[in-house]
């Protein structure tokens, strides 16, 4: 009898050892410990044994049962720990499934970054329409009557109006600045607003020149402010857009609608101002004109230049975006080429 029990124990433990799956284990548990298991069979014959044997065999059988139970539990735990939810081979180096996402045009992205920065400073956003008149595009802005920019080689005039003058001569706006007078006429002063948009010039195009491009203009009109406040605004905006402090400098520049006018340079981001090919080895990149709003422009907006003053900055969006990503051909922005646009996700 004892030998039989030894045999049951030995075989049982071996079977436990050989188990490969949880399903097998459940079957084996039945086989080893169920009502019809050899162990149960032995226990059923217990009554036929003498008391001494009965006790001994009973204890032995219980011990085997406990061992089986313990081993099976251990095995089960082991198998669960080793089990994967994927029960087939998987290549973890295969590419993942990309989220199906579109993207905003990089110009729009930059424009919204700037909007966020300006809105946090209490600016409003204004949109002027694309077609304007000579009056708003040039006359109001103190452009001399025979200023070269008014010629058809520079500005896209609308057919049928090209030989007229002032408010009857219409064009695709050559810059955003005309919108400043429109806004001021509507809202008065004080005012602080930005007006992003697309502008048009009749030019020969190449990697650096486009016929349609984007500007982002900001204007503050208030009493008793100094032109040097403009620097604070510019620095704040750059810091917001590029995420760190960017050095800027102002230098002499001339624009009919400003007095004084200045060019604003930012440190070259490629070489951080040390000098490289991109910045023509001088460490600075010309990014925007700016200046104090010319008294004649304020007069066009029905504002008294003795009372009001203010300053413009005009950011070349294309150029800024080109700096941000290292884009070297401005024509890509209007190409509608998804191979280009998809890179800005």
């Amino acid at each position, binding site marked *: 009898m004892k030998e039989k029990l030894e045999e049951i124990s030995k075989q049982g433990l071996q079977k436990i050892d050989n188990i490969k799956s949880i399903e097998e284990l459940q079957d084996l548990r039945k086989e080893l410990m169920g009502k019809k298991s050899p162990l149960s069979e032995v226990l059923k014959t217990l009554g036929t044994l003498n008391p001494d044997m009965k006790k001994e065999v009973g204890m032995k059988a219980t011990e085997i049962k406990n061992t089986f139970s313990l081993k099976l539990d251990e095995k089960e735990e082991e198998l669960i720990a080793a089990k994967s939810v994927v029960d087939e081979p998987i290549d973890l180096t295969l590419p993942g499934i990309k989220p199906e996402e579109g993207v905003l*045009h990089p110009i729009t992205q930059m424009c919204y970054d700037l909007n966020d920065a300006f809105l946090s400073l209490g600016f409003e956003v204004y949109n002027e329409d694309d*077609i304007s008149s000579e009056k708003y595009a040039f006359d109001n802005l103190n452009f001399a009557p025979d200023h070269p920019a008014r010629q058809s080689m520079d500005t896209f005039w*609308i057919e049928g109006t090209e030989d007229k003058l002032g408010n009857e001569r*219409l064009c695709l706006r050559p810059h955003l600045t005309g919108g400043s007078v429109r806004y001021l*006429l509507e809202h008065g002063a004080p005012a602080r607003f930005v007006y992003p948009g697309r502008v048009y010039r009749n030019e020969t195009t190449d990697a650096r020149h486009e016929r349609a491009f984007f500007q982002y203009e900001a204007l503050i009109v208030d009493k008793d402010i*100094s032109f040097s406040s403009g620097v604070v605004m510019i620095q704040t905006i750059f810091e917001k857009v590029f995420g760190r402090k960017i050095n800027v400098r102002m*230098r002499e520049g001339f624009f009919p609608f400003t007095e004084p006018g200045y060019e604003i340079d930012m440190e070259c981001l490629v070489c951080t101002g040390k000098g490289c090919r991109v910045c023509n080895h001088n460490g600075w990149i010309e990014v925007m004109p700016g200046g104090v709003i010319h008294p004649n422009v304020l007069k066009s907006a029905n504002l008294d230049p003795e009372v009001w003053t203010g300053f413009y900055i005009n950011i070349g969006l294309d150029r800024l975006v080109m700096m941000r990503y290292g884009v070297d051909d401005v024509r890509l922005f209007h190409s*509608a080429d998804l191979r280009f646009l998809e890179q800005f996700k």
Partner: protein
Amino acid sequence: MRVSLNLVKKYVDLPANLTSAQIAYDLTLRTVEVESVENTSEKYHDIVVGKILNVNKHPNADLLRICIVDIGEAKPVQIVCGGSNLYEEEYVVVSKPGAEVVWHGEGEPVKIKETKMRGESSYGMICGAEEVYLSKLFPPKDNHEIVDLKGIECIPGQNIAEVLCMDDTVLEIDNKSLTNRPDLWGHYGIARELSAIYDVPLKELPKHKIDFSLPEYNVEIMDPEKCQRYVAIEIDSVYEKASPMWMKALLVNCGLRPINAIVDITNYVMIAVGQPLHAFDRTHVDGEKIVVRNAKKGEQLLLLDNNTIDLTEDDLVISDEHNAMALAGIRGGMKDSILSDTTGIILEIANFTAQTIRKSGKRFDEKTDASIRYEKNIDTERVDQGIALSLELFKEFFPESNIVSFCDQYPKKTKRAEISISQEFLNIRLGKVLAKDIVERVLKALGYEVEFKDNVYHVIVPVWRSTGDVSIKDDVMGDIARLLSFDSFSAKPLTITFSHAVHQDSILLERRLREYLAYRCGFNEIFTYPWIDEKYIKAIKTDLSKSIKLATPPAPELSFLRSSLIPGMLEAISKNLRYYENFKMFEMAQIFEKGEYHESSLDETLPIHKKYLTGCIVGKNAKDIFYQLKGAIESMASFCHMKDLTFIREEKPSWADVNVYLNIMCDEKIIGSIGLLSFAVMSETKIKRTNVALFEINFGYLKPFDSRTNEFKHLPQFPLVEKDLSLLIDNDISWEVITETIKGKVKEIQFIEEYRGNQIPDGKKSVMLRIKIGNDNGTMTSEEITKEMEQIVKILYKKCGAELREE
């Protein structure tokens, strides 16, 4: 404009140790943009004078010679040369090994090495003009000519830059930064700025001492509005000869070509003080009379190259008694040229108004060194500087010359502007309190006269800035600010006044729409030009009578401005189909059509502008892409917080498929459309082997909410029961009819699929839908559920003829 520091230094003593880079930087910050600084002698390193001692034939080459040349070194050297004008005792330009030359005047400079040519050793090379940047000084007569230094004082071995007075530093100034400054178009003006920047004295220009008892030359100005002053000086005993080397070098360094001493003097004076001059051969002036007049009808000007130009009555000409000799201030004609037989000249030093020159220059598409200066509006007193400087040079170059007669017609003198600026104005606008002596120093250095009384600066603007450049106090403030450097004004913090919340619903909606389409629906944003290729406009049968056209379009086929965003989108689709099969794009932009619209004031009438939003999905399965696009529009309102969009089928857009289109409605108004692109348009635009679903929406009709408006709904207290129904139904019963039928009976309806196929009888379709039913008062019992479902099936049968499909 090229500025020679040698010439600038004639007029101002710059501080010692000042580098040219520093000058460029200071000028850039304060006055004009210096684009580059060039040391003109640098490129002549290792290029020296050589004296040919011997010229021998080359044993292996007919066209080459072997020259023994003294280049100032211990021993003469042997150089192989193919020059056509080699002779013994000739002084030539030798590039020694290590020098850099431009091979045949083309390409990048190449370093010279000691070499062998056809077996004979050659120590460097004897150079032609183009190879060493000297073609302006020594115009070559043929390709093989080398530079002959005959008549030029030099010794073998001397550096060529030194011999040719090329030791200079040139600042290249961006002309665009000079447009408002007529005073800076001469070196004297730049010198004045530097004297102000560095606080060093500016030297005075010579004053002329014309003997007014001289006979008067006959000059008549017919149009004093166009010609404000005309000085004619008749000079004899001048003739065509070369200028001294220093003058030639200076002209070359400033980008001009030396011609002969007479013409060179006029050019030199122009670059020195900015006053253009002109010299006429006096024998060419018929009737010894100069008339400044408008051209006659049909009059022509004969040019030096025997061509003629047709003048108009608006063009101002310089004429003799009979004919036009020159287009005033722009260019001369055949009759004014200085020729080898010239013995006397009439020197013109005149003032023409900017507008006259600009108009004629534009008409003849002509810009000359003179006209670009006149176009900036030069003051009339500049003429005096021109007289003095030119007479000094004529006396120097032609000591035997005499002034024979003279005339100064001066109908209109430039008036100096007078401006008053209060100290308070300056302090506030500059953001800094400036001491009176600083303001005065700066202004006086720039030539202003300043008087300070009762806290007000009364200034008289220098005459050279009084032709429009400086006319108001802001201009004077600008001068002070720039000269002290904008950077020297510490930045003043801006204060913000909060008065009200900013409401910009439409601006925000625009952004939400863009972000929705890109980030939620997977569309890529594109930009296209507003001028559209006619091919695409015509493809969608646009009504061109309403379209706006450009007067001078970028290309003939691009003259129409868009009246819809669809044609531009079609072009973008056809471009991208080369690289992609499935893609989604959108664009938001303005479109234009004829009409009347006042954006800002009634006196300005603009065409109609509408902002549109358009998008497309491109893919093979027409139905799939249509429903995808429809889904994007259906969810647009809730994601973008605006009034609901609904659909109706009323007007087919010209681009849409005969069957598959819907109009988009908002507030009972049709505001756009969605549909598949028609076969017809696809074949016109060569969009092949694919399908396109498109939508367009007039952005202006969308109604943004002030804020989100959805309302919270309580979660169901008792569980809902979900049931799928598979219906067999007539083909013409639409989903809309089905949902309307059971809407009241169920909590939710969801479309699962529609099927037509083998198992479905003709004229029928299978529609599977999922519904949720529930009871607000308690959990439904199975009896209640069965009863409810029976009712639903019954009503579907009754109203729609729907039968339950056996699974």
